[in-house]
């Protein structure tokens, strides 16, 4: 698979874009508003262009990816810091590939959707009778527009890098460095308690990351002692999985990694930063935060916690499953009680991340495949819902659910798309989220009946929070302030429609995606099983589980 470094290209394109955008010369403060708009538009088109180029590169990777080929493809490996045994090593398996593809798809969508987020100009000029209310509720940050888009493009490089890295050190570098652009996007361009939210987000993630750093260094030291690579330690994932670790060590190292990922994901009870951060972030940044950044947590659990510490993972499985189930129910119940749209969507994510973690830790092929597919679907469904909520907020200047009502009558397109995305959140059959949620529950039921039953209640709660929010905002009498609301503009439609199409398309015909995911999942499962045979199941479920794990 050595050849053209497609992954490096896909990762470097956004960074190149960020540099080009940053080099767009600014204009003096007293220059005309139209000049400034033109200059800002240039930065935006550059961002859009580079993100589309990246998408093309990722599509090429996806097309060239051989299903049934080697587990890691498009591998690159160069020595980076020999003193630490660190390599610049990239490669994708099916799981990483679909997550990179999701990132690459979301990026242009987010850029389109947040076209005016940074310059404080509302998507639609507020109706003449409203300016005071609207402008008071949406402060207009006077930050540079090009910085916002440069940060966004830098973030894309890191998001692709974090999924593509096959060196644990490199993974950590992206994992931590990723926080900085997001921190500035929330802190500088957010609304409400943005400073508090940004600091909370950064510190929470840093704390988890630092604990993981200890585990990473310890892993390195153990790899050096084991002599797998001679006297030097290694960070290469392909070598680390052969390092023998005692069960006690595995438990500690598992915890070091897991806490970082549980904070990132976020799993109950490490979730409290997410609603604050997502509510304060501009809608586009919130989509990237919930849709992509948080996936790094669940991706890390699957890739690193499982394959590096199989017996540690098994030891903690009951605990994680308990946390996941609590998260599913807790997130959904708290979401029902939210008065702010963005916080509501953030809490639904806590519930959904519970599902993903549940699917991963039941350690059945269906569960893990379902969880991986869930990650992608959740990115699209939550992304679409967040963006639509963002459009609503931009029109009305508030994210209080109670301030809306009857939107469906004035903006039918917006309401319709909002409904489809909402239904995707509650896993309506026919939408792709149904496939993934069903797989997760099936995989869970084959091994753990009670958690599966409790988790299923989460779907009912999901119906409550989605439909009730829809009812309060879209139905009912048209509220006075909503009356003048304009429907979606072409730019906004262009952003959201692809996501909805993907949700429906993958719901009707999910097989291609599952075909890419499944081999990688089987390899992961094999790695977990080689060191510790699967525990016996009740006879009735053996067939299901075996069907799942058979090669």
């Amino acid at each position: 698979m050595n050849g053209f470094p497609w992954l490096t290209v896909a990762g470097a394109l956004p960074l190149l874009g960020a540099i080009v955008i940053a080099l767009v010369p600014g204009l003096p403060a007293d220059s005309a508003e139209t000049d400034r708009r033109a200059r800002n538009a240039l930065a935006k088109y550059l961002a859009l262009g580079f993100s589309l180029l990246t998408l093309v590169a990722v599509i090429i990777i996806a097309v060239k990816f051989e299903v049934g080929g080697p587990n890691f493809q498009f591998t690159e490996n160069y020595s980076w810091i020999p003193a630490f045994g660190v390599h610049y090593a990239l490669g994708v398996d099916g799981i990483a590939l679909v997550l990179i593809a999701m990132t690459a798809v979301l990026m242009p969508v987010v850029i389109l959707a947040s076209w005016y987020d940074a310059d404080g100009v509302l998507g639609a000029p507020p109706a003449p009778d409203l300016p005071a209310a609207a402008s008071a509720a949406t402060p207009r940050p006077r930050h540079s527009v090009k910085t916002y888009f440069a940060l966004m493009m830098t973030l894309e490089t890191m998001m692709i890098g974090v999924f593509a890295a096959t060196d644990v050190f490199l993974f950590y570098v992206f994992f931590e460095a990723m926080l900085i652009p997001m921190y500035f996007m929330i802190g500088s361009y957010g609304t409400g308690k943005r400073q508090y939210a940004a600091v909370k987000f950064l510190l929470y993630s840093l704390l988890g990351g630092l604990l993981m750093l200890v585990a990473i260094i310890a892993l390195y030291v153990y790899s050096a002692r084991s002599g797998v690579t001679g006297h030097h330690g290694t960070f290469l994932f392909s070598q680390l999985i052969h390092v023998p670790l005692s069960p006690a060590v595995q438990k500690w190292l598992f915890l070091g990694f897991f806490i970082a990922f549980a904070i990132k994901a976020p799993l109950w009870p490490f979730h409290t930063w997410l609603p604050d951060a997502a509510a304060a972030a501009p809608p586009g940044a919130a989509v990237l935060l919930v849709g992509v950044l948080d996936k790094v947590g669940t991706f890390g659990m699957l890739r690193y916690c499982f394959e590096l510490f199989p017996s540690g993972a098994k030891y903690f499985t009951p605990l994680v499953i308990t946390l996941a189930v609590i998260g599913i129910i807790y997130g959904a119940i708290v979401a029902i009680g939210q008065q702010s749209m963005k916080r509501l969507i953030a809490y639904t994510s806590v519930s959904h991340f519970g599902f993903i973690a549940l699917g991963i830790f039941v350690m059945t092929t269906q569960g893990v495949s379902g969880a991986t597919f869930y990650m992608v679907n959740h990115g699209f469904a939550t992304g679409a819902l967040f963006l639509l909520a963002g459009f609503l907020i931009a029109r009305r200047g508030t994210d209080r659910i109670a301030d809306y009502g009857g939107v469906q009558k004035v903006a039918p397109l917006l309401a319709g798309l909002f409904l489809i995305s909402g239904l995707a959140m509650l896993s309506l059959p026919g939408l792709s989220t149904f496939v993934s949620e069903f797989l997760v529950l099936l995989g869970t039921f084959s091994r753990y009946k009670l958690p599966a039953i409790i988790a299923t209640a989460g779907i009912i709660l999901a119906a409550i929070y989605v439909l009730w929010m829809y009812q309060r905002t879209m139905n009912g009498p048209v509220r006075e302030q909503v009356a003048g609301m304009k429907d979606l503009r072409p730019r906004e439609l262009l952003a959201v429609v692809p996501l909805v199409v993907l949700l429906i398309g993958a719901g009707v015909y999910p097989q291609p995606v599952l075909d890419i995911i499944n081999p990688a999942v089987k390899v992961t499962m094999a790695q977990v099983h080689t060191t510790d045979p699967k525990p016996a199941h009740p006879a009735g479920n053996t067939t299901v589980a075996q069907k799942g794990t058979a090669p």
Partner: protein
Amino acid sequence: MIGVLAPAAHAALASSAAHAALAAAAPAGAIKAPSIEYGQLSPMLVVFGAAVAGVLVEAFAPRQVRRAVHLVLALGSLAAAFVLTIVVAAMHSLYANGSPGHVAAMGAVAVDRPTLFIQGTVVVLAFVSVLLIGDTSNSPFAAQAAATPGSPEEQESLAAGIMHTEIFPLTLFAVGGMMLFPASNDLLTMFVALEVLSLPLYLLCGLARRRRLVSHEAAVKYFLLGSFSSALFLFGIAMLYGFSGSVRLSAIAAAATSNTSNATLLFTGIALTGVGLLFKIGAVPFQGWKPDVYQGAPTPVTALMASCTVVSAFGALLRVFYVAFGNLTWDWRPAMWVVAVLTMVAGAVIAVTQTDVKRLLAYSSIAHAGFVLTAVIAVSPAGLSSSLFYLASYGFTTVGAFAVITLVRDPGGEAGHLSRWAGLGRRSPLVAGIFALFLLAFAGIPLTSGFTGKFAVFQAAIASGETALVIVGVLSSAIAAFFYVRVIVLMFFSDPIPDGPVVVVPSIFTGTAVGFGVVATLVLGIVPQPVLSLASHAANQLFVG
């Protein structure tokens, strides 16, 4: 010529003291005729020589050209010293002649690879600090330190444009002392070096042009506490001499393994010399001077102290504890462990409440000293090389950060109070962005030098089984991250305050200093391999005895 002779005489003086000590312990025949290896000592000799020449310039050069001459002399000698360090390092294998190291000046000075690395670092950092010191646009130094603050004399001297050009030779003396400090192979030379580096710094601390009383207070505090710690250090030397009959580090190490009586003398000696050295690096509980002195001193001097002095003092600490007490790790490790934990935690926690940017960096410097101590405790080649790397990377970031502080000004001087920094990111995105980069490096974010350094020291500590220490380390890093991030929040996420500070356009000097910091912070973060291999090359031969 005189300039070259003076330090030689000084070195001879120190070595004759060592002689006396040696003569008492070893048979007289073991001592060769006195000889000074000028070539190997040349980096130090050049700096001391330039310092003495600077005194003559002060006496004879006319006032108009004095500053220019001083600047050329200081920068030139530091650059020459750096080149000579590289030459000595390159030729080192010749001197060492296969043995693990080499001593010069009759055993008073050690020339080994770790020392050369430290000396090279000190010289480069001093070069950058001198750039800051020499920046006369809006000089931070008092025109006449002796004039009462606010008095007519002061007004007059300000108006006349008088400047204390003695700061240049003083700085060079201090730098020379810093180069000798980690190179000293016997405790008396080390004590002399300690005094040579400290005395000029006491003076320099009191020379701030603005907030003169705070500056004077800093100088007096530093002087009193510094003298106290020097006295303790000297007392410790006496104890160790009483124990081993020698002040030479290797002789003490030998006595520690063979001589099992008089352990009280030995342990008291270790404790007292340890206190003297820990005082210089500002480890808790000997950190009390640091915030006041860092805040009161003129910022370029603070930069010099925060980078060069810390590097040099760590070099001396490493030498004493690895060479003289290297066989006693079981005895001093627990105490050092406690000091490291206290230093990391107290530095990070107290920093959270600071409101002055220089005090904040002082406490952050204390916390960072604690991080380096984790590697010192590792007592391994990896521990040594990672401390060397950490010190170099931290030094550059620190100089850069203080250079930025000199740029942010209120009408009454530098804008020290953090609230004045609010919204700086909107006014001058570039300066605020650079400062944010330095803060992120302090916080240890990947792709900056701070992360590489932290990774290296923590790795060395874990490899030596100090996992608990590292966990304390990462928890304090998380606390420390809070206050670095808070400054970023202030600069970028807060609205600018009305009549906020002005960011002056940096002169070529300050600009270069900031540039050094930025480049080093990024390069050591992204491609650290050359410096890492240099450090590990320096450390694969431990200190010479």
